[in-house]
């Protein structure tokens, strides 16, 4: 499945909703040669700001000098899925699409699944029950 982010059928303005959510913990950072808006945990506010250079910069900050093929496969899947469905993939979707276990995915990115893979892929910070 290859979906152009701008033409995605479900991509109907998630960014404005995030910005209206009342969270003011935003900051501008220069990542991969580009000024982008990030939140307190360095997740992109606008997933469409993501570039491959930006991913490389975030990966270096996570401790990955060079992203390997499998890591790129994960990143591309996360982004394609997100822009098509309007949300991050289910655990079983990732497993089926990438062909690795969640444990292997955890080890693939030093920050883990959510704060590693998801962050480098430029997906929004998952709103969960943690702080």
């Amino acid at each position, binding site marked *: 499945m290859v979906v152009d982010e701008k033409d995605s059928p479900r991509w109907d303005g998630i960014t404005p909703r995030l910005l209206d959510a009342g969270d003011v913990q935003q900051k501008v950072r220069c990542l991969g040669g580009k000024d982008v808006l990030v939140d307190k945990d360095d997740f992109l506010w606008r997933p469409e700001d993501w570039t491959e250079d930006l991913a490389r910069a975030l990966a270096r900050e996570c401790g990955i000098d060079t992203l390997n093929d499998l890591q790129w496969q994960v990143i591309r899947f996360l982004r394609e899925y997100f822009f098509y469905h309007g949300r991050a993939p289910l*655990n*079983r979707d*990732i*497993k089926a699409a990438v062909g690795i*276990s*969640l*444990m292997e995915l*955890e*080890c693939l990115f030093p920050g*883990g*699944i*959510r*704060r590693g893979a998801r962050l480098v892929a430029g997906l929004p910070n*998952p709103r*969960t*029950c*943690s*702080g």
Partner: protein
Amino acid sequence: MIYLDNAATTFPKPAETLRAALETYIRMGVSPGRGSYDLATEAEDLVTTTRKRLADFFDAPDPERVIFTGNATDALNIALQGMLTFGDHVVSSRLEHNSVLRPLYHMRQKGVIDYDLVSFDDNGFVRPEEIAAVIKPNTALVILTHASNVLGTVQPIEEVGLVCKERGIPLVVDAAQTAGTIPIDMKSWHVAALAFTGHKSMLAPTGIGGLVLDRDARIELTRFGGTGVDSRSLLHTETYPHRLECGTLNLLGIIGLLESLTFIQKERVESIHLREMALLTRLRDGLLGIKGVELYCADDLTCHVALLCANIRGLNPEDAGDILDGDYGIAVRTGLHCAPLVHESLGTSPHGSIRFSLGPFTTEEHVDRAVAAMSEIARRSC
């Protein structure tokens, strides 16, 4: 899937109770007590029966003071906002869920009240003497969770009730984690108001809960609207239960609650609890032996509900939850469990922990598979 998130919502529910509730609702899903037709009267009878059964179940003095709400949070909001006024002081604890912490904080920010939160000991229990020690002349309410949704510890409500009774202070109890799994005795524990939800150990559907009041509890109206009674008056109905209920009730939820209550009473609350605690002990013992797993539960599981929290050293609990789900088919709750102060005290903030919570349909095999999964994840954790 192995479902170990019963402290959030019990799942599955007994299918026969849901089917029975649905059949009744198909037959009489009308506005209870509104209208002059028989079906409305019959529906109201079911609501009244449910109030009576709940009053008996919680040993509450007056079925008319069983108020239906959406859940425990809704009930706690009605209680806190209706029982407190300007200048009041409240005593609560660091064990509380945000269903208590946030309304209290909101009221303090608005300049209505002030409050003190007592801490808990190393085993996760609030000491009644510490509650007594922070009571002030203007303390108007003590509010306490019956069981921590993070530590699982059952609090000494009876002793706290005595502290409150001696000082003439109403005690509000958040029974979200205990109603349906620990017997509750409002009268002898001197509980002024009890908030419960249907969707946890009461085994009812989501969207139904209640606030059960003692006859002496004084509670002002904070919501107004149609009650089906005294409709000419612009004043909201003063008499219970309509005083605190607005609009059409969640009849399907109430019928579901009635059916699930019948199920629980047939199975016996004590028996359900004993069975769940035997499984929790098995889980605790299994996790204790795993290198790299940190446990957050009392040494002695005597005063406990069937949940415990753990972490795998070096692994974000949310990722651990993803791995348990994606690789092992085990559903758990991760994060702060809406009880941030407990995690602050445990040192597990901001990421929280992995919570395993057992239910009436949890089996030994489920527990053993959870232990095996945790063991494997801890071993492979990078």
